[in-house]
């Protein structure tokens, strides 16, 4: 299996766990939560999401390009698949960012609170789309030379 294919699964699993844990944390908090408090909590959580996503991309860059036992880790086909998938991810990132900006963020929104929410949610959607695009091109089980 290609390292990029493995990295795509790692992205999906890690972000899936982070998403579930975040939802559980919000559900388990004592109620009722004011709208302001809830927004602050989500903004804080999504700031951590951004750090995790950044960490995943840094790890992916180092790990996929590294040689192991003199075998190459990433070649022209992997780069082609990565570039195509980055395009898909970038479109999703931009789409979710604009959707949130126009339809979700209130007019009196505080930049300090809503910017992490905007960036975190769009980066999350973009990374998931990027990872799914990789798996789609290699094949979900890596049967197409993944």
């Amino acid at each position, binding site marked *: 299996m290609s390292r990029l294919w493995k990295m795509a699964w790692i992205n999906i699993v890690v972000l899936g766990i982070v998403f579930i844990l975040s939802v559980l944390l919000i559900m388990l908090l004592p109620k009722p939560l004011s709208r302001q408090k809830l927004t602050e909590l989500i903004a804080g959580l999504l700031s951590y999401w951004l750090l995790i996503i950044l960490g995943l991309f840094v790890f992916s860059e180092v790990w996929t390009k590294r040689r192991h036992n003199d*075998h*190459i880790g990433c*070649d022209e086909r992997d780069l082609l698949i990565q570039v195509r998938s980055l395009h898909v991810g970038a479109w999703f990132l931009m789409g979710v960012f604009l959707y949130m900006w126009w339809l979700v963020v209130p007019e009196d929104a505080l930049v300090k609170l809503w910017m992490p929410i905007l960036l975190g949610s769009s980066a999350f959607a973009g990374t998931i789309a990027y990872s799914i695009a990789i798996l789609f091109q290699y094949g979900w089980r890596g049967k*197409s*030379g*993944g």
Partner: protein
Amino acid sequence: MGGGVKVADEKVTNTIRRLRFEKSEMSQQSLADAVGVTRQTINAIEAGKYLPSLGLAFRISRVFGVSVEEVFQCKDEEKR
């Protein structure tokens, strides 16, 4: 002969699998190391799921000591 990748109206097939076996049953990993790609890419090329760059096609043909045309064949899908 392996599978083929369809490019426009033409289907590109290859004889890498046969050439590997003729060259002392060379493994996909050995060929991959010789041309500087991953084993998965050689597997995808053989299966006709990936069309290599011109540079890689030349490197593969040099490993077998044959011309590019002997490794990759292009067939018209329909008569024009």
